[in-house]
């Protein structure tokens, strides 16, 4: 099963490398969002909960773009049928897509966080960096598990590009709450403080619950 997951993951990453459709678009949208936020908020720098909000709005919008693209290649080119005809464990498909989205989000953040620091963030990033990476990693897991399930549901619909964000964003609210509360503390104008344990706990539990839901339901989405 691990080998199958890795094979699928490798294929997705290779496709992205060749096609370059998802990640550049996500990064571009993030950049544009930050510019829009600058004008929308009417400020040169932000801190505290406003900074937190700005960062998460940026990341979530780009995430929905990634979720949209996650299954499109399979659906359009009949690739999923080919996989369904092989003896692999179908859960591998779910895990592979989750990992793909996780990797995209991580790479995206590697670009967005420095850009955010440069363009919008007031307080210095360095002291908060380690905690920030922890929060981002946990949040990415939540986004990835939700995204894999939502992507699989939405791709069957005619209006998939519309539905993926509309389904994903409400479902991501709990993760957003925990992440935003955490980063608000990190971006506080007077310096970052220690994040209370409840927020990372909520994030971890959230990713776990959606992961389990996904595993339980995935076969049903793929079968005909």
């Amino acid at each position: 099963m691990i080998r199958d997951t890795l094979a699928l993951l490798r294929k997705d990453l290779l496709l992205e490398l060749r096609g370059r459709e998802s990640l550049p678009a996500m990064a571009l949208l993030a950049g544009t969002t930050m510019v829009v936020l600058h004008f929308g908020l009417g400020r040169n720098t932000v801190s505290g909960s406003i900074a937190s909000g700005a960062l998460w709005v940026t990341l979530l919008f780009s995430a929905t773009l990634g979720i949209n693209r996650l299954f499109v290649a399979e659906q359009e080119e009949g690739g999923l049928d080919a996989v369904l005809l092989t003896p692999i464990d179908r859960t591998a498909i779910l895990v592979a897509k989750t990992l793909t989205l996780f990797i995209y989000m991580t790479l995206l953040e590697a670009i967005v966080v420095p850009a955010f620091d440069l363009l919008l963030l007031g307080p210095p990033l360095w002291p908060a960096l380690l905690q920030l990476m922890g929060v981002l990693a946990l949040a990415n897991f939540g986004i990835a598990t939700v995204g894999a399930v939502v992507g699989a549901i939405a791709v069957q619909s005619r209006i998939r590009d519309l539905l993926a964000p509309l389904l994903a964003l409400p479902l991501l609210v709990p993760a957003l709450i925990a992440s935003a509360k955490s980063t608000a503390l990190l971006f506080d104008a007077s310096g970052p403080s220690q994040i209370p344990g409840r927020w990372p706990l909520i994030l971890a539990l959230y990713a776990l619950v959606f992961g389990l839901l996904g595993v339980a339901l995935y076969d049903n989405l793929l079968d005909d």
Partner: protein
Amino acid sequence: MAETAIELVAATRNYGDRVALDNLSLNVPEGSRVAVLGANGAGKTTLLRLLCGLLRPHGGEVEVLGSKLPSEAWAIRGKVGLLAHEPMLYRALTVRENLTHQARLLNVEASRVNDLIGRVGMERRCDEPLRNLSRGMVQRAAAARAVLADPALMLLDEPYANLDPGGAALISPLLEDGRTVLISGHEPRMLLERSNIALGLRDGRAAFFKPSTEVSDSEVEGLYR
């Protein structure tokens, strides 16, 4: 006596309110070459997709290569090959990458990929992305994908539609020799010549299922009326 490759007993498959396959019963011995004839919408594609486990039956019993579908569908994966309307390959990847990826999922040796690339005559263009290739070339690559795991049962849905005669001549022994084959299409005469049993589908029911030599022209025409 030859073993049964496929056995259907009153198999049914619906598409919403419409009945796509209606109480279909047949018995296909191993090693047969079955021509599946019928007008568009008669149920040919539905039947083929049902037999490889992509669709589950809504009624009746289906047994393929000794395994009951859908409960034992896992047992036939990799043993049934499908060549369908879509090539089931990624356009952004090369032929070699596509086949290597599929080989990994099927647990097939990497050497077989090279082997097949040679057999379908694609050595020169196997490292170009699929989107640069003509439909005929893509169909050859799809054929290679379909036989990667050397399946005992091959399901071919209008396989020679995009191929030139040279391509077709190259592909057909690869697809058809040494296996049980079901091949559907709209060239009844050609299909009847190359098969030993013929199945005629009309509105999801079997209009006839008999040796190809015994099928009359009027019976074939009856399918298309």
